[in-house]
């Protein structure tokens, strides 16, 4: 099972996790570090180990801002954000596992909230 998941995450992200030299620069530069239980370098390492389910069940997948700081600054072009995205997709693609549902939206709205925020959140948190 977890082997299949690993394959799926690797294929979907297009990332070669073996390129990682474990320097931790991704986590050193991550603006969401303190909010995450598992940090970008751990995503890369745990995917390599095949420990995907732990990541899927962690809130960390919803904390990534997709700001690509880790992607641009990684010395070895590993692109950790793409791994996080692939794991998140693996999670929200499970039936009934959407992280955001339309019913929640009205209470989040305020007069200035741009449509862009809603669209983006749906793209990130649901399937």
């Amino acid at each position, binding site marked *: 099972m977890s082997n299949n998941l690993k394959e799926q995450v690797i294929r979907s992200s297009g990332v070669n996790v073996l390129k990682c030299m474990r320097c931790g620069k991704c986590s050193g530069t991550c603006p969401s570090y303190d909010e995450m239980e598992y940090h970008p370098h751990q995503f890369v390492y745990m995917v390599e180990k095949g420990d995907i389910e732990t990541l899927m069940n962690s809130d960390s997948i919803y904390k990534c801002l997709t700001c690509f700081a880790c992607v641009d600054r990684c010395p070895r072009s590993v692109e950790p954000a793409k791994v996080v995205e692939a794991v998140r997709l693996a999670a929200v693609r499970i039936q009934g596992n959407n992280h955001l549902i339309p019913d929640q939206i009205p209470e989040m709205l305020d007069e200035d*909230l741009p449509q*862009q925020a809603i669209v983006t959140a749906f793209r990130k948190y649901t399937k």
Partner: protein
Amino acid sequence: MNTFMYYPGCTLRTQAKDLDAYARSSAEALGISLEEPENWQCCGGAYTTAKDEIATKLSAVRTLNAAKEADKPLITVCSACHNVIKQTNYDISHDEEMSAKVNNYLQLDEPYNGEATVYHYLEMLRDVVGFDNLKKQVVNPFKGKKIAAYYGCLLLRPSKALAMDDPENPTIIEDFIKAIGGTPVIYAQRNECCGGYITMEDKAQASKRSAKVMDSAQEQGADMIITACPLCMYNLKKNSGSELPVYYFTELLAEALEVKEADNE
């Protein structure tokens, strides 16, 4: 007169009408004609990097294809649209499998493989109009104003696909500020994320991020901060708790060119 395809995107039709209106009136003043593609769709707000996500890329490809068919470069203003459309264009021209799948879905008259050119409005100012030229047309310069440019993440990264400016030491908005007569303020957080869509998930995190950006700019003595992104605008204004004024760069441009009132009644 230079004519471009112009993609406003969802938010410029609603919450960020100013960003759009000032962009249009300024373009006209600069002799640039903007043409909206017919029946454009929302780009989705965020680019999905996953290789097995094809449907989420289609609307951007439709827009790109419209530009290709019209044989005109495509201009975007909103940072998010820009990011999505440029990344889509980059991937479709570098990833054969993705291009095959996308074209298989769309069944266009002629397959789309990344032929269109995409400019951000700022790139258009830099590369088509030219900042020197812009400077000459400024009627109402921002003399003595210390303006902090906020790039955020979407304008610059991933730098391979966006290829707009040096991702760590960008100059395009600073050069723009100089062109409209202001004094650019360099501060460290200008290319760090404001929190973006996390405001929907975790307000506290968005506050923390945007406060950091605002503090960093204020520390360096900025009078105001400018952005190209409605979501950045929202976070910096609503979530940061800072009083530092935030404007769209197009508003300052329109003011400098003195076309602000005319088109924004």
